[in-house]
């Protein structure tokens, strides 16, 4: 080991030497653990990007896995800032991790772009959230879409079943608000865990309340468990899912029981069916064709799209920041933050960003569409 030391020091020097000239982007995401189905496409997206050149500078992505764990996410962030001297942090995949990482980036004064859903990450605007941006749609935007669709379908009573975690809780809060606005009454609230082998009890209780529609707030294939149970128990009302299920695996597991279910989703999921004038269509097409070219047909997920959108934001902001300072300096990080905050009309895969000091997400209604499941395919509801 002793003889290796000089060699390692030399190697470390070499790494630092090249790193100083480039822009380093630290990425922490949940490629393993409960959120792996979201984190893996994000990781794939960054790996697909390789080391692109933005504004004449080479960009390095340093990708770390936080195992869907809050402590690990904070540790990764500290490591990326302390050891890798990154200029910007991207991550994490899930809300609790992103919330915890805020303290670290604010302390180090480094901009951060989260790929997690909750509006709590960027709201309210205060010194703490000044450095934090996020690419996924706020849950409230999606919940409003669900409530509007329900009202149009004549739904007056709603049953809710969702994950017993931050995702489910956030949806429950949002749908309560949206449903109230739309004059829909929530008659039953049930919770389950993503790994539950059976949700019979919860489903029976939902059925006993006889709601016109049922909303399932889960992500990925675990959201199919109550869905299949509802169909098996003969539920005849409308079933709504959330944008958390938008991947091919969900369609595979839910099978024909999924027919007719509705969900709000990022437009990327059905970009082929969008009108040609839609600004999202081009960006989504560029991303999906590149991604599916590398990872196989139908491998697209909107989660990977959030990673792509984070990259697009950087692609817009970095050239602006380069005009003011050199990468690796504090002045560059401040300039990058300011540039991120003034991104306008940037068409991403999941919507159009119009950032402002008050809104660090910047999405509007163009970032959501209602989608119907029809024989194992996503069909845009027009």
């Amino acid at each position, binding site marked *: 080991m002793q003889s290796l030391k000089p060699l390692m020091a030399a190697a470390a020097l070499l790494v630092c030497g090249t790193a100083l000239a480039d822009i380093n982007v630290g990425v922490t995401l949940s490629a393993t653990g409960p959120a792996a189905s979201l984190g893996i496409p994000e990781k794939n997206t960054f790996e697909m990007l390789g080391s692109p050149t933005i504004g004449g500078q080479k960009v390095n992505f340093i990708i770390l896995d936080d195992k869907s764990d809050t402590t690990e996410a904070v540790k990764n962030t500290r490591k990326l800032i302390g050891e890798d001297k990154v200029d910007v942090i991207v991550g994490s995949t899930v809300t609790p991790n992103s919330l915890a990482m805020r303290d670290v980036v604010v302390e180090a004064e480094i901009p951060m772009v989260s790929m997690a859903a909750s509006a709590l990450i960027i709201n309210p605007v205060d010194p703490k959230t000044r450095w934090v941006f996020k690419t996924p749609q706020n849950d409230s935007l999606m919940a409003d879409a669900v409530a509007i669709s329900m009202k149009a379908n004549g739904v007056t009573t709603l049953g809710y079943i969702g994950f017993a975690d931050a995702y489910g809780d956030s949806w429950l809060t949002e749908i309560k608000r949206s449903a109230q606005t739309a004059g829909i009454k929530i008659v039953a609230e049930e919770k389950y865990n993503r790994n539950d*082998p059976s949700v019979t*009890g919860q489903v029976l209780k939902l059925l006993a309340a006889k709601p016109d529609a049922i909303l399932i707030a889960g992500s990925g294939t675990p959201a199919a468990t109550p869905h299949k149970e509802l169909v098996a128990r003969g539920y005849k009302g409308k079933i709504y899912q959330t944008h958390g299920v938008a991947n091919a695996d969900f369609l595979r597991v839910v099978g024909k029981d999924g027919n007719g279910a509705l969900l709000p989703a990022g437009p990327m999921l059905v970009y082929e069916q969008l009108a040609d004038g839609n600004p999202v269509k081009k960006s989504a097409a560029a991303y999906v064709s590149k991604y599916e070219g590398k990872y196989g047909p139908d491998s697209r997920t909107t989660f990977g799209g959030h990673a792509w959108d984070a990259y697009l934001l950087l692609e817009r902001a970095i050239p602006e920041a380069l005009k003011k300072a050199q990468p690796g300096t504090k002045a560059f990080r401040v300039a990058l933050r300011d540039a991120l905050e003034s991104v306008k009309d940037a068409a991403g895969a999941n919507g159009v960003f119009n950032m402002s000091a008050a809104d660090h997400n910047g999405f509007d209604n163009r970032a959501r569409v209602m989608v119907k499941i029809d024989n194992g395919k996503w069909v845009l509801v027009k």
Partner: protein
Amino acid sequence: MDLSIALLLVQDGITNGAIYALLALALVLVFTVTRVIFVPAGEFVTYGTLTLAALQLNKPPGTVGLLLGLAAVAGAMEVYATARDRAWHRLPGRLAVYVAVPAAIAALVWAVAPAGLALPLQIVCTVAIVTALGPLLYRVAYQPLAEASVLVLLIVSVAAHLTMIGLGLWFFGAEGSRTPPFTGESFHIGDMSFSGQSLLVLLFSLMVIGALWLFFDRTLYGKALRATALNRTGARLVGISPNLAGSLTFMLAAMLGAFSGVLIGPITTVYYDSGFLISLKGFVGAIIGGLSSYPLAALGSLLVGLLESFSSFWASAFKEVIVFTLIIPVLLWRSLTTHHHEEDE
């Protein structure tokens, strides 16, 4: 809540309870014979379901690679052990068990998987692969430490569990799978309907429990295992190899896991990390049986299944809390009613 809902919940509880019971039996079996707390029991369940799901997509499952890898490591360990003892005459037999048999299973599955087999043959392949993993895991991870304390063995178990979860994510991906039901039939008695699948689960669990009873009561190997469980040193003195007993136990435990996996696949979506929670519930059942009594462990698991099903109806947010809190009164009751034996090291 009316009677029909209660009956549905009972049916659901018993179906899940039957699967927990199979796992509880595996846990009790492994603990009594080898003193290992079999934490990776749940991984054998998920490997079972996901292997079957992969076969249904006409793909050779990732577990085949694991089987070959473990067989190679076990083979190398055997060569080293026989070289050290200069007992070369034992080598062919041992290599046949640890290398030739797993390699043959792997080759067979690899060859036939793309052809698309009938469901019963897919199940046979699945059970063969997953069962073969059991003795190999014992040989590689536990046998070199067989005389270590319960705590060391537990640590090895946790390591094996974490490794198998990681490999599961690699083999099968983060999303879950379901397998098609064995039967779409349902039976009606009055207002009540019973799904054929749940009846099948129950029937099969009973059959396995019966077969285990026959094995332990009527066969020489079964008696050897019982003897090892009762008194390890004594069993060794009368010529029962502890290594054989360990391998055999892990084979049975892996087989129970594979069966549970095949049975649970059509009822629920299984993920690479589902196994831990399932085996933890089996563990609660096994604790009710004091980690030593098979009938009590099976009954305890049924209780866990029923409690889970009813609490999911009344208080779905607190379901796991209620199920795992059950372990506290059980432990209290057991510590008050049984004498504590110091483990003789």
